[in-house]
């Protein structure tokens, strides 16, 4: 046999279409904004709805990001994810109401401190709950999708009943902290301060999450684990421990999303997690199971679509996101940013 040849491979120049292909899902967000701008007669209304849609999208992304990674890493379908949203909202808002003096003061610093403490309480509670949930409910049903659906759905129902037992059956209405109320006017459009804050916070969180996934070793393990967990273990990494960490972090993020959603709606109910779960699953599916980037794009599209359609044709608002999911899956059956899974 001859000696090893000297390889001098070269890179072929890619065409414009080929270079644009990975960015197509990203371009869908501005395309949807443009479609909304063409369809909505008033520019100021369009701007208000766009900010509102983006804010809603960011909150759904925060709730959904953990779920997509949980599925991607261990093939776990967690219908109990909505429980973390509800528990996070109730714990966080309870803290906020207990800090009524700070939340009601006309001081941005005190208001943000109150929100920060509420968020910390919610994330701590749901992170801990996620750890217990994984050990008690999810771990016995690894690899059995039907059992996962049944048992995690049961977990959601039990959690909702516990919330009703602890906080009572009535919805809790409340006001946002003083400086987060109201709106600013920009280009003739009224833009709610809280929505702008939600957009900024969601964007920062997405970039931070992306940074962790792209630049750290743990991020590398998670990304590789989503694609081929077996090989990650064969390299010497204890993927089960990573998964527990992701499950806890995902649960805490859902709790954070619950607080933000509660502040957005200014009302919380025991069933709010279950209700948002539909949107969360739509986002995870159209984004591509296991893809954080896809989840982010999907969440923005769902938020925008919901707001535009609710303005243009309120009766169609409920079905608009289902239609969006059908359209995306017809275009890309694996979701917008599909994650290649090893067989």
């Amino acid at each position, binding site marked *: *046999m*001859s*000696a*090893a*040849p*000297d*390889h*001098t*491979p*070269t*890179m072929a120049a890619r065409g414009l279409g080929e270079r644009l292909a990975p960015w197509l899902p990203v371009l869908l967000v501005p395309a949807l904004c443009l479609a909304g701008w063409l369809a909505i007669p008033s520019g100021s209304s369009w701007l208000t709805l766009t900010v509102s849609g983006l804010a809603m999208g960011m909150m759904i992304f925060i709730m959904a990001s953990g779920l997509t990674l949980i599925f991607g890493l261990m093939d776990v379908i967690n219908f109990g994810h909505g429980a973390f949203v509800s528990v996070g909202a109730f714990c966080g808002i309870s803290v906020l109401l207990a800090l009524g003096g700070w939340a009601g003061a006309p001081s941005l610093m005190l208001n943000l401190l109150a929100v920060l403490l509420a968020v910390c309480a919610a994330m701590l509670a749901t992170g801990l709950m996620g750890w217990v949930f994984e050990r008690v409910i999810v771990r016995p049903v690894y690899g059995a999708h039907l059992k996962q659906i049944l048992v995690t759905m049961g977990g959601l129902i039990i959690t909702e009943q516990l919330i009703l037992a602890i906080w009572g059956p009535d919805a809790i209405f409340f006001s946002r902290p003083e400086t987060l109320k109201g709106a600013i006017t920009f280009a003739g459009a009224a833009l709610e301060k809280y929505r702008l804050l939600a957009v900024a916070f969601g964007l920062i969180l997405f970039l931070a999450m992306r940074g962790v996934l792209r630049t750290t*070793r743990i991020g*590398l*393990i998670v*990304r*590789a684990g989503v*694609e*081929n967990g*077996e*090989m*990650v*273990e*064969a*390299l*010497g*990494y*204890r*993927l089960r421990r990573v998964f527990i960490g992701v499950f806890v972090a995902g649960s805490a993020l859902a709790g954070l999303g619950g607080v933000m959603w509660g502040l957005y709606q200014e009302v919380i109910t025991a069933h709010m997690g279950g209700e948002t779960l539909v949107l969360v699953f739509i986002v995870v599916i159209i984004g591509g199971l296991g893809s954080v980037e896809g989840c982010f794009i999907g969440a923005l599209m769902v938020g925008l679509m919901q707001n535009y359609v609710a303005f243009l044709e309120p009766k169609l608002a409920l079905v608009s996101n289902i239609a969006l999911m059908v359209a995306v899956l017809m275009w890309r059956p694996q979701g917008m940013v599909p*994650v*290649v899974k*090893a*067989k």
Partner: protein
Amino acid sequence: MADPILRLSGVSTDIAQYHILHGLDLEVPEGGVTMLLGRNGVGKTTTLRTVMGLWRARAGTITFEGRDITALPTPDIARAGIAYVPEDMGIFTDLTVEENMTLAAVSGPVDPDRLDWIFATFPPLRTFWRSAAGNLSGGQKQMLAIARAMAEERRLYLIDEPTKGLAPAIIATMAAALRALKAQGASILLVEQNFAVASMLGDSAAVMDDGRVVWAGAMAELAADSALQERLMGLSVERA
């Protein structure tokens, strides 16, 4: 005779309702290339996966450097010093070549000297260092799979059909890489269907049939005996 680096004694493995390995006995000597040969479906891949703990042995024991690893979790088996290159290469296609290599170096960054050696062995990996591994050709992916196993020094390499579907020039590159590993004192258990490659690289061989080792000995002895090859593996037609 020195103790083998890996010993499987009476190992039986089931996959779902199928019994694949039936009391397999196999010894891999230290510091050489042991070829695991046999027809398709006799349990070669299952043997490697059972050693790695990816499929669990129902019966029998597996010892590595004298330590019982039968019930260890896969990550612990890998950290004990065993590298595994699966038949499907196990490349992370969404990650770049660099990220694949970074991940393979479990204990920290890849040693620069070792990386230079890997680049010298597989030059395309330097060229496509920052490219997504999914964009590599089949041969380049196989190079990356082997390179990943080489990223850190391991005591034993389990490699499953590294030349499958590759052009002769790439096969030569693979053979050179495996020889380089062997020269460093590593032990290699290699599943290979290409008998010419097996003859060239192997020091010893074990031939499997129906989930058992039916013959074990020196590779040179097997390579020199056509009748034995035909009896064990039905190679007469393939070599015609």
